[in-house]
């Protein structure tokens, strides 16, 4: 029974996320167009609404080209690692509290593990394997450089990412994401207590998802396409999917950790009919996540790319000390309060 429920939840979440990715691509193209005084795709279907289907069809129909000197197996494996890891991180994100079906409480997260935060950190660090392996296996200098940059970048930013989360963990005293949400639901959101930690986290999250201004592994002007230079067709599509999926995941994580997840201040869900409450919770969560996804895109079309040495400087000389200061400060305040 539990397995069936979990399976259904997985299928629903994966389908929703993949559908969302298709439309996020369209949204990103629209946003970039509007920020550059253009209109963006508007030919396929009304207002370009069917553009994602055309895009997907194109990707599926394209020829898969594997470079002659490439390591075929790893070349095929890398995009699969990327997408698997990106999707797995969704497993511990709470989309709502619980719904009641047939008198049974079903919690609105796929797996309620008690090390949720650690699990997400682990998954996001595994993501670098997909990128590094793809860079290595394609036997092309651009891919290799992209892969190397990506591993260096991930290592530098993983530290600040982890350290900035610890502040939240100290305040809420738990690694379970659902508890972190309920803890914030009854009081102020964590962003109020952790503004510095939030800034470090969001910057590190941008670097983790390889989005501009930290998209050095791709860096079109220098590296052609970076780690996915030698990919085509649906294998390239998988990298694309995983980039957007990890964008969704990190937006969801930002919301969960710092913006109260599915909870709203001054709304008492317990007084409501549970299923209605669940719907409101899910909508709240999706709306909050959507705002952060929009910010991701907004930043991408605003900021230029960092230079590689600047990236490392920011990572080690600014972000890491800031994260440590934040950690010590939080600890001192907590000690003083208790």
């Amino acid at each position: 029974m539990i397995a069936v429920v979990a399976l259904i939840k997985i299928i629903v979440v994966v389908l929703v996320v993949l559908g969302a990715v298709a439309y996020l691509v369209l949204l990103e193209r629209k946003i970039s167009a509007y920020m550059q005084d253009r209109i963006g795709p508007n030919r396929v279907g009304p207002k370009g609404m069917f553009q994602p289907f055309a895009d997907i069809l194109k990707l599926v129909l394209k020829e898969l080209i594997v470079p002659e000197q490439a390591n075929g197996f790893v070349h095929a494996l890398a995009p699969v690692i990327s997408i698997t890891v990106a999707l797995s991180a969704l497993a511990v994100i709470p989309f709502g509290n619980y719904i009641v079906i047939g008198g049974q409480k079903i919690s609105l997260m796929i797996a309620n593990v008690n090390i949720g935060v650690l699990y997400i950190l682990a998954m996001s660090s595994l993501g670098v394997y997909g990128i590094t392996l793809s860079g290595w296996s394609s036997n092309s200098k651009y891919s290799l450089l992209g892969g190397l940059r990506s591993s260096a970048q991930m290592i530098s930013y993983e530290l600040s990412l982890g350290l900035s989360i610890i502040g939240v963990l100290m305040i809420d005293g738990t690694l379970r994401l659902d508890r972190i949400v309920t803890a914030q639901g009854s009081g102020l959101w964590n962003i109020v207590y952790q503004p510095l930690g939030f800034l470090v986290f969001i910057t590190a999250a941008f670097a983790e998802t390889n989005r501009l201004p930290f998209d050095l592994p791709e860096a079109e002007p220098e590296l052609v396409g970076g780690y996915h230079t030698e990919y085509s067709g649906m294998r390239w599509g998988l990298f694309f999917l995983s980039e957007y999926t990890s964008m969704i995941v990190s937006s969801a994580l930002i919301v969960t950790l710092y913006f109260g997840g599915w909870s709203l201040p001054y709304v008492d869900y317990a007084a409501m009919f549970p299923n209605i409450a669940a719907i409101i919770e899910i909508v709240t969560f999706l709306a909050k996540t959507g705002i952060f996804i929009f910010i991701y895109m907004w930043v991408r079309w605003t900021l230029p790319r960092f230079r590689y040495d600047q990236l490392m400087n920011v990572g080690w000389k600014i972000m890491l000390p800031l994260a440590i200061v934040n950690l010590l400060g939080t600890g001192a305040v907590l000690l003083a309060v208790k």
Partner: protein
Amino acid sequence: MTNNGNGKIKPKMTFWEKLYFPEIIHGMTITMKAMFRPKFTRQYPEERWNPPPVFRGRPVLVVEDETGVERCVACGLCARVCPSLAIQVQAAETELDKERYPELFEINMLRCIFCGFCEEVCPEEAIIMSKDFELTFSEPKDAIFGKDKLLIPRSQLEDRLEFLKQYR
């Protein structure tokens, strides 16, 4: 900006600029404002563009409306000056006053670079740049425009002729 002596230019920044985040927010407000600016996109196939007379579209041969005869005297200057060797002229004799006319006049539109030299060099103002920029072919041989496509009545080219009179 200050030059620190070793050739590198270091921008001078205030404290707030060094903090970086306020500047990011500043940049983001600019892009957000840009989202609501009027758009420049022209919905091309539906919304067509009528180029100004200064525009150099494909070169065409002027035909006098009254007589139906092209102005060209097949001197071959345009073929000589064309930097991309796109023009081919074959002269023949005629009973008309101008004595010579082009039996064959071909422009290879895949070679033409729309430089307008042919127009400039022509002693008869017989070859001029039109406003036509929609040139698509499915086969290379379709791109060789013969007299059937090149001859255009003068009444359709008044804009450019007027422009040439004024500015050349």
